């Protein structure tokens, strides 16, 4: 059976009208050269067109020539003889392999990030020189404060200094930090790299007694002592690097994954800072129950915010933290040598002045 076909030799765009026939070995092409050419079945490659069109073939050994056959009966016979040549053959298996490979790749990447990043973040953060950390910290603090006013009424500032001195006395090694109160109704406090602690006035107003504020400050200084800020920054850069490299810059999936992994690690950091805060308060002789009390009240206010949201939040579930704090705070015997018997963190007068630090004189 001879069927008309078009042969392009891959050297020039000339069209050669040829005839083709199936033999035992492969396809015999007559009419191009004096002797017929045979393309063996093992050598033949079908070029996919994704639509019902003429059968187009090339060779594995040399993928430049083209043979185009318009006769569908010839195509059917070829595919009957060699089913693996049909572009549809094994296609769903290949697609499945691609999907499985993609998902496995994503899984492996997430695993590496999840377990590898905390291992990486600590040593890399430790490598950052202090001067650089200071400069970065200033930038971050400036960004957080923005246009907000820094509260510095004289009496309040003196009270704040007395409180930070108390906390300082509870450190078992020097940690450089400074504390600023910023006018902002949010109930929040944070520590940037380089030891800049920023307390929002909303938190100050919400706190019931100096022990609660002292607890929060000790917690933030715990972050500073562990260099959590710098570690978070290292994680952030490493993560954006990997995720952008993997997904390109236009995929919401990437930023969602980034948030998830960031939060997971900050939850660990929060617990670590809590434990350090208890040690600091203990050594400074400040009643440590304030920290737990503050969080307990926050949780009550938080009410029934979805459990999922709480899980995702930067702070570990507050109930869990409170339980851990309460289990750890009443120490049977003061551990450090300079531990004192608990006494109020500030006098009543100082506490009143501190609460009024945002009032201009």
């Amino acid at each position: 059976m001879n069927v008309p076909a078009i042969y392009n030799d891959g050297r020039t765009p000339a069209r050669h009208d040829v005839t083709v026939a199936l033999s035992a070995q492969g396809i015999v092409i007559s009419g191009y050269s004096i002797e017929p050419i045979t393309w063996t079945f093992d050598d033949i490659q079908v070029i996919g067109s994704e639509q019902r069109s003429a059968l187009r073939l090339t060779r594995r050994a040399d993928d430049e020539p083209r043979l185009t056959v318009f006769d569908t009966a010839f195509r059917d016979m070829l595919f009957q003889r060699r089913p693996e040549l049909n572009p549809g053959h094994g296609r769903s298996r290949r697609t499945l392999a691609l999907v499985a490979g993609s998902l496995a790749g994503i899984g492996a990447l997430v695993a590496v990030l999840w377990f590898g990043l905390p291992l990486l973040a600590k040593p890399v953060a430790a490598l950052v020189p202090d001067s650089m950390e200071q400069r970065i910290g200033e930038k971050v603090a400036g960004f957080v404060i923005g246009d907000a006013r820094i509260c510095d009424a004289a009496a309040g500032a003196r009270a704040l200094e007395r409180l930070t001195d108390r906390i300082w006395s509870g450190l078992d090694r020097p940690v450089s930090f400074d504390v600023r109160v910023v006018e902002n109704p949010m109930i929040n406090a944070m520590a940037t790299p380089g030891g800049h602690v920023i307390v929002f006035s909303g938190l100050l107003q919400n706190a019931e007694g100096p022990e609660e504020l002292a607890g929060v400050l000790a917690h933030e200084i715990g972050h500073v002592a562990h260099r959590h800020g710098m570690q978070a920054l290292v994680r952030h850069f490493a993560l954006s690097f990997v995720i952008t490299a993997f997904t390109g810059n236009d995929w919401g999936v990437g930023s969602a994954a980034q948030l998830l992994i960031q939060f997971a690690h900050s939850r660990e950091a929060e617990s670590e800072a809590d434990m350090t805060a208890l040690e600091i308060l203990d050594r400074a002789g400040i009643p440590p129950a304030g920290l737990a009390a503050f969080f307990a009240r926050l949780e009550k206010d938080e009410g029934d915010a979805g459990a999922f949201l709480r899980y995702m939040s930067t702070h570990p579930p507050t109930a869990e933290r409170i339980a851990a704090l309460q289990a750890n705070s009443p120490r049977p015997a003061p551990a450090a040598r300079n531990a004192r018997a608990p006494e109020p963190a500030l006098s009543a007068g100082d506490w009143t002045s501190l609460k009024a630090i945002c009032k201009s004189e």
Partner: protein
Amino acid sequence: MQATVLAEPDPQPAGGNRTTSGAHALRYTGPTGTLFAIFFKNLALTIITLGIYRFWAKTRERRFLWSGTSIDGEPFEYTGTGKELFFGFLKAMLILVPLFVAIELLALLLPGDVAAHGVSAIQGLLVLILVFVGTFAARRYRMSRTTWRGIRMQQDGSPWRYAAIALKGLFLSIVTLGLYVPFMQTSLTRFETENLRFGSKPFLFTGSAWAIWKQYFVLWISVVVLVVGLIAVMAGLQESFELSDMPAFSAGLSLIPLIVLIAIIAMSFHYQARFARFRAGSTRLGEIGFSAPELNGWKLFGLMAGNYVLKLLSLGLLTPLAMQRTMRFWTRHTQLEGQIDPARIAQAERGPGTGEGLAGFFDIDMG
């Protein structure tokens, strides 16, 4: 034997290397239903793989579009693979991401707002340059994977040179309030065309920028006259009748930007059609000349506005329909005429091994 035959090309006299003459039929015959099937399969797989399948999706789509396009009944062929696009993307990421992380780190370290603004300016310029570089590099890949009658296309020319021409053109266009635009477009088109080959045969660009500039200038000046005229008329009315208190007058005043915007859009479609005609008419491949004599601004507007509405109303689900319209439009409007001796064209070298990484990064989509 059953004689079922699919879209056979025009019968030609027997024999080997002869010359083809006269008008050539450029056609697009890709079936719409098949494209929809590919589109939705691609969409599903891309979502399942969190985006990784997009390189294979793009490849399937192109294989379909290319093999649906034919000259004298002989279809084009897309020979690229999803793997090549995937590795091209990874390669671009390995270079780009550290670059951008380093720039961001620099912004964090440098003191002062000025430094931060300087860094973001550098970042913006870098993105602009890389967008042009990526566009042209992607074009090189795409051309090297396009064959007709087994002969590859080849796009030569440095992507960086292309970016330099584009950047210079952009700057001069801004400085001249848009008067330089035709020169920029012409020099970019000339660079693309004169570095393009079918096998060993180079394309030629014979157009002069002044020819298209004259047509552009008429449109440009009419927009300027319209703006100035409208303002003058309104100011005159206000002066002579003290109309400024009347609500109808202020309503008319607020219509001015809208009228100007519509005028600019109309002019721009008109000009883009003129330019496409100029571009086709100035392009040659040996003895073969191109032209697009029937193209005009209204038809171009119909295509673009129709596609926009189709995609918008269907939330993107009718994108294949828009693709079909685009393919049919451009193949219908482009004409090829002239004879060429195939024996005098040889195969082109093989193109780059991987492709389109940069363009993928910036999400430049060229079909």
